[in-house]
């Protein structure tokens, strides 16, 4: 057995025979021609053909990988229309009397070199696009057959590098996985592999020609490929692969299904996210919305206090991508265990009970208003909910709402477009849970933050491992506070969700549903397993034996 490592693009396992994919070799003759006009005509004819091909590839990528991945083929069509590039090629044919093939090779290679010499990795990666177009032109001019290079049985394809058009042209039913020696995670091949969810390894430097036809396992989880693996490895990775397939099957089976119990009660299952990068996970796991978008990332990823515009861009991107799904963004929850230099917060004896979250926002109005203005501006692009953390009193909620209204008026007078939003609060202190009736009159929704609620109710520091023996995540006091909050919310038409870790605790799902919870917001990977449980419950039947109760 041989193990070779690379950089993974997509997790997952592919098992099968290797097929080495050899790029066609172009042997271009530098002899001179008499009829230069005929060469220009051949060039123009090939250009037309390649543009048609790129258009077909665009349509195909649109189907298999979506608009973002397909866009590159649209750009290819435009590149082929570039006047400078065409003029450079024509000059080689007309003035230097070379063949169309020679002109294409020289002209396109020069353009590729320009990109290769640039500093920015995005632009450097564009050289591959130019080479891709060059090869497509040469294939047409030389009459190469590019369709037969994949063989006839499903295999793990190994290549030096793949151009975007080569990746899209590959027959998916014959493709188990992809390994390349070159490539970057910015390349379109990587992007396409991601959107097709194809196990892929790039920068695999030790690819060898003698792999052709050998049995192998591509292990995306461990970023490596095993050539002629041992039986033990085959067995364990086959089991892992089957587990993955099971998950995919679950996804297929539950995607688009509603979170409805056997007796007909439907709740929402949302996802918790930490930034725009997690949006893909929300979509692939089919969450109905985002129940907790931690806005801390905009503060933590910045060296200075982030501007209103920078925040607006990040919020807008998430809202726009997920629209019409609801996205609930929690306002700044800095302090306690999350500190930031530029905020210049004093060191405190007892930070969990200290100057944090809404307490900072209500004393640093300008800072708070920047975030609220960014949120309101972004509300025009999707379905936004705003949620205030660490609330203990009605007075605080009213103050937050006043500042929000002030921002709204300012933006209105500036002529800024805004959307309708829901306003809610986190219930994560015993004080808020006990005052839930009064608080419910002020807001559209509650979201129970069970991690802090448990820590504050039981007086157990959640970071302190020594307290482990004393902690009980199903403590009856916490469950009672949750029930009280749900009931108080419903008395005032305020919907109630859970966004803490308890929301994903499958042993509590039935308990929460019986309490009447309206929404559970969990990490994206728990969305579909939770949907499966909800669909298996029947609340009209007597309470199950294993059910966790408050008493």
């Amino acid at each position, binding site marked *: 057995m041989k193990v070779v490592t690379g950089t993974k693009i997509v997790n997952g396992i592919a098992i099968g025979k290797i097929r080495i994919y050899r790029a066609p070799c172009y042997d271009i003759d530098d002899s001179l021609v008499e009829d230069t006009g005929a060469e220009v005509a051949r060039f123009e004819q090939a250009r037309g053909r390649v543009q048609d091909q790129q258009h077909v590839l665009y349509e195909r990528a649109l189907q298999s990988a979506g608009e973002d991945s397909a*866009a590159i083929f649209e*750009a290819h069509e*435009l*590149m082929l*229309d570039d*006047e400078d590039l065409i003029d450079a090629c024509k000059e080689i044919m007309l003035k230097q009397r070379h063949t169309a093939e020679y002109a294409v090779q020289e002209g396109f290679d020069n353009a590729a070199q320009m990109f290769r010499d640039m*500093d*920015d990795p*995005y632009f450097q990666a*564009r050289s591959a696009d130019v080479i891709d177009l060059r090869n497509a032109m040469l294939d047409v001019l030389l009459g190469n057959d590019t369709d037969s290079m994949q063989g006839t049985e499903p295999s793990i394809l190994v290549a030096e590098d793949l151009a975007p058009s080569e990746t899209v042209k590959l027959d998916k039913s014959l493709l188990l996985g992809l390994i390349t020696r070159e490539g970057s995670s910015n390349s379109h091949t990587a992007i396409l592999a991601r959107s097709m969810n194809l196990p892929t390894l790039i920068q695999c430097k030790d690819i060898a020609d003698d792999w052709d036809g050998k049995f192998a396992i591509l292990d995306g989880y461990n970023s490596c490929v095993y050539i002629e693996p041992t039986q033990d490895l085959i067995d364990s990775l086959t089991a892992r692969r089957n587990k993955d397939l099971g998950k995919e099957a679950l996804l297929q089976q539950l995607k688009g299904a509603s979170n409805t119990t056997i007796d007909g009660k439907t709740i929402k299952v949302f996802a918790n996210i930490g930034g725009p990068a997690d949006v893909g996970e929300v979509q692939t796991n089919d969450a109905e919305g985002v129940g907790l978008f931690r806005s801390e990332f905009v503060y933590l990823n910045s060296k200075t206090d982030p501007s209103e515009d920078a925040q607006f861009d990040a919020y807008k991107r998430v809202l726009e991508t997920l629209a019409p799904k609801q996205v609930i963004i929690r306002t700044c929850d800095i302090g306690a265990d999350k500190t930031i230099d530029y905020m210049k917060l004093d060191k405190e004896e007892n930070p969990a009970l200290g100057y944090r979250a809404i307490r900072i926002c209500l004393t640093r109005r300008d800072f708070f208003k920047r975030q609220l203005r960014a949120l309101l501006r972004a509300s025009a692009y999707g379905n936004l909910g705003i949620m205030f953390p660490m609330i203990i009193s009605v007075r605080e909620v009213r103050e937050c709402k006043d500042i929000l209204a002030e921002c709204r008026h300012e933006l209105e007078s500036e002529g800024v477009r805004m959307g309708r939003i829901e306003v809610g609060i986190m219930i994560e202190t015993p004080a808020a849970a006990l005052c839930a009736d009064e608080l419910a009159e002020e807001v559209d929704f509650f979201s129970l933050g069970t991690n802090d609620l448990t820590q504050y109710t039981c007086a157990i520091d959640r970071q302190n491992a020594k307290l482990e023996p004393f902690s009980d995540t199903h403590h009856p006091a916490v469950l009672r506070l949750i029930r009280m909050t749900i009931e108080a919310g419903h008395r005032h038409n305020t919907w109630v969700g859970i966004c803490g870790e308890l929301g994903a605790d499958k042993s509590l799902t039935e308990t929460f549903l019986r309490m009447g919870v309206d929404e559970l917001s969990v990490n994206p990977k728990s969305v579909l397993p939770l949907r499966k449980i909800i669909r298996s419950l029947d609340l009209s039947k007597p309470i199950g034996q294993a059910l966790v109760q408050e008493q």
Partner: protein
Amino acid sequence: MKEFTYTITDPVGIHARPAGLLVKEAKQFNSTATIIKGDKSAKATSLMKLMGMGVKQGDAVTVQVEGDDEEACAAAIEKFLKENM
């Protein structure tokens, strides 16, 4: 001649697809539009040269438009930049 400056907000800068669409936009007019950044410049109808300028987020570019329909052309390009880059 019409002239204005614009600061690129797109995180990748003037990249392939919007640059291609800008070319399409610019080709609809008789006027010649030139995009200038520092000592580099490119015609708005020249895709590779535009990309070759390596314009990044936060870079300010100057746009000069000259021709019989320069008024309309400058307005169209400014609108396009605001919406796409």
